[in-house]
């Protein structure tokens, strides 16, 4: 299913991006240009936009199959080389956000279930709602503005590669990753709590309690693994949210990742870039879902054996 899904996505994106209002030739020519009809046709021909859409699609796909994602219409820079710089940045931000999200949401979700209706539970549930409700752009803006107003603090002004300066790299990414992580953690926290509550009411857990096992053993060995199957699904489904979040936070925090590149390219009708990024995002989502399916087998051996 992976290949047909990806082909379907490429067709959809290829068509949709061409429905964006505006004329890329006019955009490329600038405000000063007075292009005649012939000149416009010439530019379109040069860009390969004079051919029928399906032909453009096949040309593009044949290049993609050879690992060539094309050239930016605006900058003439190879999309592949640009993404080679930007993808690691966004992956790092995404992974960091995911790690923060899981580190926060899983323990709190479990504890909130185990201590149901306690203060901790109420605080955790309220926190989850708050994390879900506060948009990342708003939180990002507040983090940018308020500490500066109170203490004169601002995040690093220039992105440093992780290999060049790991400390500075982490300093730059940790705040947007935390904001993104908080956004994701609300859902995961609530799902973890709900699943844990359900599992904790199961007969086999009651049996474990009745055997006199310690709470830690009951929760960690018997409850968590079963509770986590839907949680893993939710984590997998959050990858698109993660990608969306990076677009906003990379812009606010001046991080040179794929999200910012996508925004820049949509605004300038840079078809090859938009197509390439969407293809990559779709691939990541499909592969993540594949990974989620594989993970089920580890969490519940019955799935593996069946």
């Amino acid at each position, binding site marked *: 299913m992976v290949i047909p899904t990806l082909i379907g996505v490429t067709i959809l994106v290829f068509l949709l991006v061409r429905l964006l209002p505006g004329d890329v030739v006019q955009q490329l020519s600038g405000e*000063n240009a007075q292009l005649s009809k012939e000149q416009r046709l010439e530019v379109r021909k040069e860009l390969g936009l004079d051919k029928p859409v399906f032909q453009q699609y096949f040309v593009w796909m044949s290049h993609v199959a050879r690992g060539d994602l094309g050239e930016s219409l605006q900058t003439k820079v190879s999309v592949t080389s640009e993404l080679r710089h930007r993808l690691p940045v966004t992956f790092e931000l995404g992974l960091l956000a995911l790690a923060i999200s899981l580190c926060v949401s899983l323990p709190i979700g479990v504890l909130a279930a185990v201590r149901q209706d306690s203060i901790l539970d109420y605080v955790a549930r309220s926190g989850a709602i708050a994390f879900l409700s506060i948009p990342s752009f708003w939180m990002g803006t507040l983090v940018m503005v308020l500490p500066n107003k109170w203490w004169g603090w601002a995040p690093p*002004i220039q992105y440093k590669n992780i290999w060049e300066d790991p400390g500075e790299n982490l300093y730059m990414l940790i705040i947007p990753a935390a904001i993104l992580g908080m956004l994701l953690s609300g859902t995961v926290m609530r799902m973890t709590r709900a699943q844990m509550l359900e599992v904790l009411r199961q007969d086999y857990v009651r049996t474990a309690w009745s055997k006199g096992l310690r709470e830690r053993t009951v929760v960690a060995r018997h409850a968590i693994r079963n509770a986590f199957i839907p949680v893993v699904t939710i984590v997998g489904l959050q990858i698109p949210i993660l990608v969306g979040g990076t677009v906003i936070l990379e812009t606010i925090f*001046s991080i040179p990742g794929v999200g910012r590149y996508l925004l820049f390219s949509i605004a300038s009708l840079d078809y090859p870039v938009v197509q390439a990024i969407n293809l990559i995002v779709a691939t990541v989502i499909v592969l993540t879902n594949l990974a989620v399916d594989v993970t089920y087998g580890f969490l519940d051996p019955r799935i593996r054996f069946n």
Partner: protein
Amino acid sequence: MNDGDDFWRRALRKRISRRRTLQAAALGAAGLVSAHTIACGGDDEAEGPPRAGGTADARPTPGGTGTGTIADLYNMDPHKPIAFLTHVFGSWMYNRLMRFATQRGVLPDDQWYEVAPELAQKVENPEPLSFVFTIHPEAKWHNVDPTFGRPVTAEDVVYNYNRFSSLSPNKGEWDMVDSVVASADNRQVTIKLKYPYGLFLKRAASFNDLWLVAPELIEADGDAEKRSVGSGPFIFEHYERSVDLMFRKNPDYFEKDEWGNSLPYLDKLHLYVIPDTNTVMSQFFAGKLDTTYVQPALLDTIRQQDSKTRINPFLRNLTSFLYFEPASFTSNKPPFNDVRVRRAVSMAIDRDGLLKLVSPEKGGEWPNIVSAGMGSKWWVDPRSDEMGDAGQWYKYDVAEAKALLKAAGFEDGFETRLHFSSTIYTNIILYYPVVAEALPKLLREVGIKVTSVPEDYIGQYFPQTYSQGNFDGMAWGLLTVLPDVAAYFEQSFLPFDAGGARNMSRVDDQELISSINGAVRTWDVEEVRQELRELQKYVSDQMYYIPGINPYEYNASHPVGAGAVNTSGPTTFAFGTEGTMWGWRYKEYQ
């Protein structure tokens, strides 16, 4: 007080309330580039605390790194740009034959847009149709691969002209040039014109046109997109897309200051790509940026947060105006085909009220068809006596506007649409959306019921409304910074396919076209100036385009240095030799 005062009170109340609400979320705004007072801490005469050594005549101290912001570049080759930003970028590395005059501190506005030699050591105009430029004997290409510091020659200029005239979208601005020839000793370039053109030297100084790129670079790479080698004050070091842009001082640059110090003073120039305006302001307050562009509504906030910040107001050479659907002129379509209606529209605009709204501290000027930012020598102030009868059409007078509409047969007013960009401009030109919001209310007071039509700049406004004239009713627009006053007339009134790139309304006034051609194709600059001043009155009387406002805008700088030139104007985009080259930092900030 009339109804208009109530409107302004309401509008001001509304804006102040909104401003407070959004203050945290909208702290500051940045232009695409915030570099024109870079490293200089703004003007020493600008608002801010005085300090020792900070006077305009203090001796500059070389060294240090200037910091600012810039937007991502689309391309780097100055001969085939799609954006003004490429010219800004080029101005740090490349030279032109001429440039616009600079002076430390405030340049008197009657001296704005006067030309001065740059790469040309001197220029002679032996007869109306030829200009002879002598290349500065010490001018050298940057001491990097592939030029390795070789002298700049006349042949290099010819090479660049040939490339510019075949590639550049702005080549039409040099349509008057017949030939460009190098002398036998390769030190002089003779430019022959097809017809006399008194303002030609301003075209030679234009920040949109003939930047001089090392020919070896073009021969080696095919273009100047990957590397940039010129003869200008800074050497390109690196550009990392979406991160930063860096230049270092050209130690062999040929220009020196009045004390014999080599220019530029700064060792480095570091510009960051920061797309979010709140982030720009935070970085500025944290001291990581020397300067930034700020919106007037936040000036008090800035002063409260850092009382040492210098605020420098400046008048940008940019025109705002209303334009009409082309059918008004091409098919005589009512109502805007009637000059009385156009005059009524102009009289419905309370320009002072708008200026108070968008720039409460310092206000601004009323543009003519020429921006007030061109300076008093070239711009005719619509409020001045010189305007004669045409000046009356700029006055805010609701009763007279209604009378004009009545005389034109629109006693009950009429309905129309106002198209404007709801993106891009709104982030760059902060007053644009405010005026777009106010105009329908002002026009309603004279009986013109306007439906606002916000349009996406890329999707609709630029390709359709602005470029093709595919719209109905009126549109609210901006006219980019132009190098000379002739360009305003040529671009706004010549036929669209014959140099009138910004004749959005397709005005077709043969008498005017003939007058423009007659005026600009004149050798004597003073004569050109007088003729173009007269034409400003004529087009004001006709109100083909309705000039809007020229508000003061503001730049905030830390007091880390001095040497800013031309503060308050003119604001060309050639920041390299017309700005940054003169800026320096105090020792303690290097």
